[in-house]
């Protein structure tokens, strides 16, 4: 039986409250993982492990959080992401909402691409493919 978006959100919310020590009501679809929920780098790995367990899925390295693109200096020009970098990132992250970021692709704003909804979208795609 297909898992509804609400069910996916509920489980993602539980994963994030456990991984980040935040309360349920702090985790809304638009919350950003770093800015709003205080995630640090190791927490991203923790989140991946917990999602794999909660949804019985396998998340290959770099698929949910494509850090190799994010940390690649070739894709950065000053404080902006280059058009090539942006294109690569969009391809790598079909689960993220780029509507705001692409208007002004500040590197400093990159963490805002990682919202609770980004994870929910990723898991939903993953469950549909499975």
């Amino acid at each position: 039986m297909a898992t509804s978006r609400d069910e996916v959100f509920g489980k993602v919310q539980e994963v994030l409250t456990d991984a980040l020590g935040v309360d349920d009501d702090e985790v809304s679809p638009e919350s950003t993982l770093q800015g709003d929920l205080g995630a640090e780098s190791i927490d991203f790995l923790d989140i991946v492990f917990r999602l794999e367990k909660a949804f019985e899925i396998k998340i290959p390295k770099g698929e949910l959080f494509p850090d190799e693109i994010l940390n690649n200096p070739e894709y950065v020009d000053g404080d902006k992401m280059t058009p090539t970098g942006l294109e690569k990132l969009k391809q790598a992250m079909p689960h993220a909402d780029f509507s705001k970021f692409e208007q002004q692709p500040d590197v400093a704003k990159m963490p805002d691409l990682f919202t609770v909804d980004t994870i929910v979208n990723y898991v939903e795609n993953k469950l549909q493919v499975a």
Partner: protein
Amino acid sequence: MRWIWIDSFVEFTPKGSASAVKNVTRSEDHLHDHFPGFPVMPAALIVEGMAQTAGILVGEARGFRENVILAKIRKASFDDFAVPGDQLRYDAKIETIDDQAAVTTGVVSKNGKPMGKVNLIFSHVNQASKPPELPDHNFVFTDQFMDLLATFRSKDMSGSPSDE
């Protein structure tokens, strides 16, 4: 001072689980300050004992090729404390292990009775991924730690680690 917070391994199943014991003694300096007249093993050192038990388990699972760094304490909860004369036992299990990291779960027991849980995440730091300021050699699995495992291996016990 030697930073070893386990006395010996009592069980070791490679790539699966490990159990170590720690006898709390009044000769440990810090107990006289924590607290004066009321010596209690600090909870942070209980976490360290579990991290050493689980860390060696994780290191052994990949042939001690990488530095295994404690990256996150997922959970640490205790409903009792340990005083001189008590024996702590750390039972650690590997939940997940891959190229990047390992997740372990653990139960702490005092004199045979469970008294807490410590779940950890370790990061694998190898030559390719290590920050330049860290040393080139394996700075986690020093001779002291390897001796601890060797002592266990030399005991004639079932489930001893393989000599890979």
